[in-house]
């Protein structure tokens, strides 16, 4: 008996490296990442090639001679219609749209969410339901009414008008995000603060805000990505002088005059996509923490 127990299985069960499950799992992962990475690779290498090399047609080959000329051209020389100052103008327009829109929408939505989860008032649930309904109405149906609205208040074509539109359209989803986060904060914490004599704003700034960093990061990423990548509102509610970067990009890429400069187009597209990418990589960990929030313990 004793011998049997010594020779039988003992300790951790050995794992096979090339089991069927592993091959399937990693195989899927590799295929999916190829699907996303290959186009990116093509864009990067094309943007670093000169036009003669592109015409040779070797799409997947690495550049024989690396040149940053297309990037410079995309940034400061590419023509859109009559202007020939590249993406740079659009970039600064986008920054001017992005910063106030993100700050305003998040500031308002976080207070909304806090009020709706902790200071319930008569009709607050109805109010919340109506607000959330906004998230399910297609944007396209509201385009023309907003044109009229902006014209009436004199903000049509102005960057301020676009900031207003972005702030309002961010409200439903952001309020939902913040409300659910604050609802996951133990109610007793809020009660304790009230017994300690703190009012609406003091509880918000001193108790809730410091606990809500992860969800703020989530909100910032959502808004930066959403607003930066927005094309529709940008093209409708602004005029050529105030076009955001995405509209500018479209105008460069779709410009039909002369030859198609693939390398410049690729560089311009990469430049435009850089901002959300940087934001994401800079805050990736916090983003995951925020998404996984709700499991926060006091």
């Amino acid at each position, binding site marked *: 008996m004793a011998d049997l127990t010594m020779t039988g299985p003992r300790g951790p069960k050995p794992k096979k490296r090339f089991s069927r499950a592993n091959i399937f799992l990693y195989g899927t992962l590799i295929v999916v990442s190829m699907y996303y990475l290959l186009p990116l690779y093509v864009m990067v290498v094309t943007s670093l090639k000169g036009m003669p090399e592109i015409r040779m047609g070797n799409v997947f080959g690495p550049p024989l001679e690396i040149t940053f000329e297309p990037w410079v051209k995309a940034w400061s020389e590419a023509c859109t219609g009559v202007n020939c100052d590249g993406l740079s103008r659009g970039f600064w327009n986008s920054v001017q749209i992005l910063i106030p829109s993100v700050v305003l929408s998040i500031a308002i939505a976080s207070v909304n969410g806090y009020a709706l989860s902790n200071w319930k008032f008569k009709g607050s649930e109805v109010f919340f339901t109506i607000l959330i309904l906004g998230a399910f109405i297609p944007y396209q149906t509201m385009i023309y009414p907003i044109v009229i609205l902006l014209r009436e208040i004199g903000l049509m074509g102005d960057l301020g008008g676009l900031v207003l539109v972005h702030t309002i359209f961010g409200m439903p989803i952001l309020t939902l995000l913040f409300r659910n986060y604050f609802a996951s904060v*133990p109610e*007793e*914490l809020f*009660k*304790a603060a*009230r*017994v300690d*004599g*703190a009012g609406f704003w003091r509880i918000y700034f001193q*108790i809730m805000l410091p606990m809500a960093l992860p969800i703020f990061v989530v909100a910032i990423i959502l808004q930066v990505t959403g607003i930066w990548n927005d094309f529709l509102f940008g093209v409708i509610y602004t005029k050529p002088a105030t076009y955001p970067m995405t509209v500018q990009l479209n105008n460069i890429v779709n410009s039909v005059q002369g030859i198609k400069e693939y390398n410049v187009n690729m560089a311009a597209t990469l430049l435009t996509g850089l901002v959300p990418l940087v934001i994401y990589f800079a805050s990736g960990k916090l983003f995951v923490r925020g998404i996984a929030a709700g499991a926060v313990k006091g």
Partner: protein
Amino acid sequence: MSYSVEIKQLDLSFGAVKVLRNLDLNINEGEFLVLLGSSGCGKSTLLNCIAGLLEVTDGQIFIKGKNVTWAEPSERGIGMVFQSYALYPQMTVKGNLSFGLKNARLPKDEIEARVARAAEILQIGPLLDRKPGALSGGQRQRVAIGRALVRDVDVFLFDEPLSNLDAKLRVDLRVELKRLHNQLKNTMIYVTHDQVEAMTLADRIAVMKGGAIMQLGSPDEIYNKPRNLYVADFIGSPSMNFLEGHLEAGVFKVDDMAMPMTGYEFAAPQTADRPAVIGIRPEHIVTGELVRNAPLQYHVDVDLVEPMGSDTLVYAKLGDHLFRIRMDGQATVKAGQTIEIGIDPSRASLFDKATEDRL
């Protein structure tokens, strides 16, 4: 005699659900009052009403003679300790203790002095610069008590403060709480579902059910003279043995047994015969030598024995009725044995079967 807290005809409804019904309660200066009941009985709701965290539907609340029904929680002169500690996670212990004082715009040296005093009483001085996340459960609850302490209030409210702690720590902190009450002599209102906490801490216990107070009295009264069947059944572990029968001319009859209730103090003189329930606590049933001194003696068949170390719980059959008997831990009883038991009717409780009130 001035009351510390007076609750007059308090009603609270959530929509159509009545949580508290016409509740009256007077709490004396310096009293330790425990609100005891199973979950959903309204005990925490009542505490939240006293704290001002819930708006009442009707009725009044007075603290120190002042009508505070419409007052903000911070204006009521109360401090509150919660089950989940509810410490502000991003602040240090010191920050937690001084938050309320800063809100009240107290001068800095006054805040320092009060925090230092609370830290000394609760022995949390070395923890002042730590964050709550770095504290153990017992330490956190001490800080939570400290947060109520620094506010220098008349009334302390405790909402199941020991329920999140493990068993051993709970006992330690219970003792500390009692010591703290002896030292501070504040009025304390304490909500719990744990009858041991209630019995050990309370000057008076209010047993609640369905938004009303079933019985208000000292732990001794609640234990020995429960006013109705609910209280009798709720208090005591293992719980009381109940036998349904008839009360006829001072004799309780069940099946073919007759128990003359000699020595039993009736709440009112019994004139009519009526269906009744007798309640006998497992620890009031005697065995062995003591049986000879008991007024009533019976033979029972042992069904099951549960040794618990300090004592032994015996399930035995008297006729068709299963009885719980609490015996000494050293008792050597075995299932299948027949043993003799003694019952003293003066220590039993009789209830009207229809109204469930004590007779």
